[in-house]
């Protein structure tokens, strides 16, 4: 059986993944698989308190333990001016606590020892005396005048991090006043965690002789990390070599820089030996970046016949102790302004206040293009509340309000220019697959029998592919991405990109793009990412940006190679360049298909037999600055049955119709959809990083923070419509995050639809069985 599919014209085909050859053999090389000679291990001492003054740290017993090489505290780092580091959101974060701790599990000291276990032993010997301080858990309380100020380093002293607003407040308020119907809802998207199966970690390897630091790190953005590291440490950037090896899932978790990384680097530079730090799952869930934690209030206006008139949103964003989001500089609330979704709102206004609390820092874009998940959840929930009030079917309400295809490119009231979409077609496809009218009939029958069946619709629009450099940067670095292609003399290709995949299949999909453009097969193309000494500079893989940016760079670079190849082909075919045709696989003289040359012959000639005056070689390098973002969309329909005895929700069916423009590899796209839906399911039903009143994290491991197993996970039904992006070189849009962005609302809408006859208009996720059961109990209908 041929596992290596060698196919001509590979674009759009379900080519098996090249990366799997090593991964199914257990021969991936993940961070913790790397062992360097003389390597030491680092463990962190963490705070048991959420807010406390540090009175004393005694490291003497730890230092005395044989095999311990170094113990670092915040004071030690302060002496090197490294006690604080900048976050990607423009705030700063303590590397090791100085003076006080601000969240439970905060990094207080670092210990470096001969082995992993010894480092843990020594960490336990570090004695820290704390004086507990009053704790702020509730972000609304944090803004009250009597709340203690958490960040004494801030000027002026306030727990408010930022206030951000977009849209026309007055026009929106006026439109709401004039609207026949206005629905208000408070909607919370709780704190969750990306929790990739591989935790975060790094190995810092500083060579004193050369002054070069090699930094192996679980990184979704190795080039950006190199620059940040250079700025923070003062090490010259060409002497920092960042290697992001195979990454065991990222989902946004592996975008920021963490205190453990900085400690490992400081230790390696100080000791002249490689130092490895790998976090435990508990450290992952409690300290390295949560997501969401948005407390939203929405008002949506409509006419009596269900045309939306205005949308107003007020949000409190709980960022924890430090704003460690990874949002583009000008967007402290990310791309939340996509909140008008797929609907043609005449006017809208949104404001977000960022707030400090005594919780772990973050606000990362978890499988999400910067707060798009929060925005989509909000609008898709709000549309359902509006449908309930208007007594309209939620699918019908959506069909009445979609931005019509002829309005694209569509300028949204909050300032985005949507590239393309046919929302009604996508929704109708989903309704047809699931036979929506039949479901509604079945629901009516079941309701009459007292059964609780719900149907949830979500028709979201995403905004991905950050982004055009006029608008997007992170710490000043423009958010382009890159691809460099070299064609070897025998026509084989190596391509390197500035992104870093973590399971998305770039080694295959980008090879498909390049092979398609060059008339080769994917076997002829090797794709490499993640090594900053070899790959061109790029901003990395997150926010579904790889295909819109680096994927576009790959296509454009391949076309540049082909342009030169055409000149060489003309020389080989002894015709003028204008008289050369490209048939998708070979060059031939116009009107003479029998005579032809392919890329292999052209490549050889590029090194051996060039037209006079032409520069040798066949390669191209492209930094692609996208003209706009891409706007994938989808229509998801979920059917649930609720057990009246237990409150347990059973997802009976889930149909996901996605439109991500041109599809490069349908197998990979479907895999992304399955995975994202499963994470959306988890967010809707199982997961929350909650805290008690004293700031103790209540979900610090996989016993409390539930990842769905194969048993709970529903079976997914997928399909697609294809509306290409008009500005992307191959018409593709990002897709990896759509299912995670669009599905939570479909689940929640289904459950609330089931409970609607009881008068329920909203319930906050996660929809734990007890929460649903409590509603049933209040209405006296538990079995």
């Amino acid at each position, binding site marked *: 059986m041929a596992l290596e599919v060698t196919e001509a014209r590979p674009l759009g085909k379900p080519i098996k993944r090249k990366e*799997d050859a090593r991964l199914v053999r257990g021969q991936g090389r993940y961070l913790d698989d790397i062992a360097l000679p003389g390597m030491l291990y680092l463990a962190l001492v963490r705070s048991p308190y959420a807010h406390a003054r540090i009175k004393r740290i005694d490291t003497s017993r730890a230092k005395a333990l044989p095999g311990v090489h170094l113990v670092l505290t915040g004071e030690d780092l302060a002496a090197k001016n490294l006690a604080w580091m900048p976050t990607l959101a423009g705030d700063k974060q303590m590397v090791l606590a100085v003076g006080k701790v601000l969240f439970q599990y905060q990094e207080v000291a670092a210990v470096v020892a001969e082995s992993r276990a010894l480092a843990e032993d020594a960490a336990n010997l570090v004695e820290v005396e704390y004086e507990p301080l009053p704790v702020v858990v509730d972000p609304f309380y944090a803004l009250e005048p009597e709340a203690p100020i958490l960040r004494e380093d801030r000027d002026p002293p306030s727990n408010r991090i930022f206030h951000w607003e977009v849209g026309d407040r007055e026009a929106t308020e006026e439109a709401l006043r004039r609207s026949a119907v206005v629905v208000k809802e408070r909607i919370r998207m709780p704190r969750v965690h990306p929790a990739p*199966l591989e935790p975060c970690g790094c190995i810092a390897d500083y060579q004193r002789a050369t002054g070069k630091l090699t930094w192996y790190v679980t990184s979704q953005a190795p080039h950006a990390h190199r620059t940040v590291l250079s700025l923070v440490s003062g090490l010259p950037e060409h002497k920092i070599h960042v290697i992001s090896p195979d990454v065991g899932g990222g989902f946004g978790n592996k975008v920021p820089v963490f205190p453990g990384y900085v400690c490992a680097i400081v230790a390696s530079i100080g000791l002249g030996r490689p130092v490895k730090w790998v976090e435990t799952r508990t450290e992952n869930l409690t300290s390295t970046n949560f997501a969401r934690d948005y407390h939203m209030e929405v008002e949506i206006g409509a006419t009596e016949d269900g045309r939306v008139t205005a949308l107003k949103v007020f949000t409190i964003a709980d960022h924890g102790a430090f704003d460690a989001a990874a949002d583009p500089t000008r967007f402290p609330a990310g791309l939340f302004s996509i909140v008008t979704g797929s609907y043609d709102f005449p006017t809208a206004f949104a404001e977000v206040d960022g707030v400090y609390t005594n919780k772990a820092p973050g606000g990362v874009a978890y499988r999400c293009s910067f707060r798009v998940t929060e925005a989509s959840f909000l609008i898709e929930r709000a549309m359902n509340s509006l449908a309930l009030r208007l007594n309209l079917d939620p699918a019908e309400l959506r069909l009445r309000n979609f931005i019509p295809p002829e309005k694209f490119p569509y300028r949204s009231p909050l300032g985005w220019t949507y590239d393309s979409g046919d929302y009604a077609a996508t929704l109708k496809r989903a309704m047809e697959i699931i036979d929506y009218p039949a479901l509604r009939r079945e629901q009516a029958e079941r309701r009459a029998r007292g059964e609780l069946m719900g149907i949830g619709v979500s028709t979201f629009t995403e905004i991905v592919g950050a982004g055009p450099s006029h608008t997007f940067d992170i710490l000043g670095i423009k958010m382009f991405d890159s691809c460099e292609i070299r064609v070897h003399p025998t026509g084989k290709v190596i391509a390197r990109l500035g992104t870093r995949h973590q399971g998305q299949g770039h080694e295959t999909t980008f090879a498909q793009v390049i092979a398609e453009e060059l008339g080769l097969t994917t076997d002829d193309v090797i794709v490499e990412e993640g090594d900053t000494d070899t790959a061109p500079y790029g901003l990395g893989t997150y926010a579904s940006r790889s295909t819109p940016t680096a994927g576009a760079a790959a296509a454009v670079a391949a076309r540049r190679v082909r342009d030169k190849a055409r000149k060489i082909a003309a020389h080989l075919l002894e015709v003028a360049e204008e008289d050369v045709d490209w048939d998708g696989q070979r060059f031939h003289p116009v009107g003479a298909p029998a005579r032809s040359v392919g890329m292999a012959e052209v490549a050889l000639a590029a090194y051996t037999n060039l037209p006079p005056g032409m520069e040798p070689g066949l390669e191209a390098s492209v930094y692609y600055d996208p003209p706009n973002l891409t706007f994938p969309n989808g229509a998801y329909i979920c059917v649930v049955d609720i057990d009246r005895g237990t409150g347990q929700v059973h997802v009976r069916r889930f149909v996901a119709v996605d439109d991500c423009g041109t599809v490069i590899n349908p197998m990979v796209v479907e895999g992304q959809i399955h995975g994202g839906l499963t994470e959306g399911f988890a967010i809707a039903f199982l997961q929350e990083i909650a805290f008690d009143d004293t700031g103790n994290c209540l979900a610090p491991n996989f016993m409390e923070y539930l990842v769905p197993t194969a048993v709970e996970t529903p079976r997914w039904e997928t399909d697609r419509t294809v509306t290409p992006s008009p500005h992307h070189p191959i018409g593709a849009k990002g897709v990896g995050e759509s299912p995670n962005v669009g599905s939570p609302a479909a689940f929640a809408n289904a459950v609330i639809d089931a409970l609607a006859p009881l008068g329920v208009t909203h319930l906050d996720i996660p929809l734990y069985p007890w929460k649903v059961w409590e509603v049933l109990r209040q209405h006296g209908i538990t079995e």
Partner: protein
Amino acid sequence: MRVTLTVNGEVRSADVEPRTLLAYLLRDEFRLTGTHVGCDTTSCGACTVLLNGVPVKSCTVLAVQADGGEVMTVEGLEQDGQLHPLQEGFWESHGLQCGFCTPGMLMTAYALLREVPDPDEETIRRAISGNLCRCTGYQNIVKAIRYAAERLSAAGAVAGEVK
């Protein structure tokens, strides 16, 4: 302490601390890094290996408990340059994305197919419920295991005896 065990058919020894876990003996001492560690509460199954034919979470087995035993890891699946049908199935069916859960999944599935050569979807889902995957949503993993079951029954063979 000295432990000696057979790993993928090869006798291997190492000096370990009493507290050393089997996962770290395999990874750090024997450099068999296909066995992964993804949690600290015995929840994820990324570390699953077979110990005396039974799937165990090697993060929760002491190396000394495996002394004298037989261990099979993901590295033992391929025989004579021939991928095991399960490995083929995961590749064919897109049963992996980041690949971090894959070795543990493969070992659990291997044990399942030896017990139940022709499992239905429910049986497969129950059998792999101690192995978490954050990427795939399991649907293609189920497909991959069915693929292997069919290949193995077509070959009239039992998992482990296929060459």
